[in-house]
């Protein structure tokens, strides 16, 4: 099984984000990490390879800093990496991101491509499905289990409100992976050492540009959400706050 995993680098969950002056994007001086479902997608690819043998290739599109997520993936056991490197990849809409990825892998022959179901920054929830359509492959979304079958794979899709569904999908296919599908591993010291010698192919914007077109959707403005409720902020030492909360529980919310 030859599996490609698309990993996006996004601001860390706990990072305090600030807007740039133009109000079009965030200030980039924050710490970054791998998009959460993408980390689960990598873990799933490594597990499938351990079961079925084959190869795990990781890919990211982003500036030089994004190489970090590839290094970590190689340290956890991915075999090689592809880095679409450039600042220009940050501002692409999902259609263009998918086209850039498709162009970068046109000489490869994967059986499966995993993406996360959604990115933490843009949150399009589209890149994987668009990639499948560009490649002409079938896809399945929000995947919580994968098993090889006679004719391809059988996946478990998460549906709303606690429902699930098994779907038989022929190969090659694109799957968008949901967080929680497995338990993540940590990189080992040996893994980190070995990662240094694993191949990393760089792809520039110039190499894929011909496949792109102007973004079809544009962020005009980015701003803080307007508060819809009249929220009361309680302040003070923890003991005072505890007293104030109990007051509210008793007198206003009437639950005590």
């Amino acid at each position, binding site marked *: 099984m030859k599996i490609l995993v698309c990993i996006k680098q996004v601001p860390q969950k706990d990072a305090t984000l600030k807007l740039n002056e133009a109000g079009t994007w965030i200030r980039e001086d924050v710490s970054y990490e791998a998009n959460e479902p993408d980390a689960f997608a990598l873990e799933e690819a490594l597990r499938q390879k351990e079961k079925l043998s084959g190869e795990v290739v990781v890919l990211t599109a982003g500036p030089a800093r994004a190489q970090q997520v590839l290094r970590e993936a190689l340290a956890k056991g991915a075999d090689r990496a592809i880095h679409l490197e450039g600042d220009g990849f940050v501002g692409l809409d999902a259609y263009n991101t998918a086209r850039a990825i498709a162009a970068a892998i046109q000489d490869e022959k994967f059986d499966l491509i995993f993406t996360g179901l959604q990115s933490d920054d843009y*949150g399009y929830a589209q890149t994987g499905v668009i990639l499948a359509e560009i490649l002409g492959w079938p896809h399945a979304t929000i995947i919580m289990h994968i098993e090889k079958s006679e004719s391809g794979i059988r996946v478990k899709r998460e549906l709303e*409100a606690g429902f699930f569904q098994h779907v038989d999908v022929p190969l090659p296919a694109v799957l968008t992976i949901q967080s929680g599908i497995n338990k993540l591993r940590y990189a080992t010291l040996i893994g980190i050492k070995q990662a240094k010698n694993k191949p990393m192919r760089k792809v520039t914007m110039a190499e894929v540009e011909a496949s792109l077109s102007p973004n079809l959707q544009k962020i005009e403005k980015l701003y803080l*959400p307007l508060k819809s409720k009249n929220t009361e902020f309680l302040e003070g030492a923890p003991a005072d706050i505890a007293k104030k909360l109990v007051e509210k529980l008793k007198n206003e919310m009437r639950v005590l």
Partner: protein
Amino acid sequence: MTDNILIITEQREGKLNRVSWETIAAGQAIAAETGWTLEAAVVGAGVAAIASEVAAKKLAKVYDVESPQLEPYTPDAFTAALKEFLAKHPAKLVLMPHTYQVRDFVPKLATALKTTAISDVVGYKHEGGKLVFTRQMFQGKFVADVSFAGEGPCFVTFQNGSFRADKAEAGAAPAPVETVNVDVPASVVRNKPQEVFKEAKQAVDLTQAEIIVSVGRGIKEQKNIELAQQLANALGGELAASRPICDNGWLPMDRQVGSSGQTVAPKLYLALGISGAIQHIVGMKGARSIIAINKDAEAPIFEIADVAVVGNLFEIVPPLIEEVKKAKG
């Protein structure tokens, strides 16, 4: 010719998904401001009854898009059917609810038509003759105004609860229904979906709880769940959690609140170390009172909280347990 808006309603197993009313309310509001024509479509196999149900709303027309291949749902069949339908009945804007099913096929459909879908939209603005759509980014920490460039159609999917279903206006008379039979060859359908099922019996019914103490990733470690449990016990409430806590196996799945868990409406929802991602909020925003404790003053959970405490939950919860016990005598 005036421009037109098409709403694609969602049905599953012959029943209209109620969130379709929200999309109709959104479409009616946009149509009123732009003066564009508003039409709706029902897509499936043998769904004429749903088409007439939808036709009761104030719409210029309802299409019943039919093919035997549309049951059960597959992204291949839905894309083929709607591609054919939209070729015959072009629309400038196509509106849909942002459901799991829509997420599964709309990016494919938009790509097949060389256009784009603005996803998970919470509102719109119509300024100077231009429509922009607002959507959350960075897990709800920011909102973006997004405009559409291109020939169209522009697909827009609306987040649950962005518009009110009860605002969907009824028409003076039922809208005309036109049946459109689309030709979806069996060979385009590659996936074979099996029966829909539920994983396990639910041991707890959080929907009935009056007080819920809910923990998020701010609780840090499994052993700290005990602290939240003590608070829940002191208050006489149930313990619930955000998704990552259940994914980690720190609490069972049936205690998960949110779009893929339970939807609750207690008198009190006390959120400990939960950031307030939209998939969590949709499951609990119906609570009568919401208290949130989070160390990040910018956490989106505070946007919907009645009472907010910016601080470390490990410092605030222990004295709170003591005060609650005292108050209860």
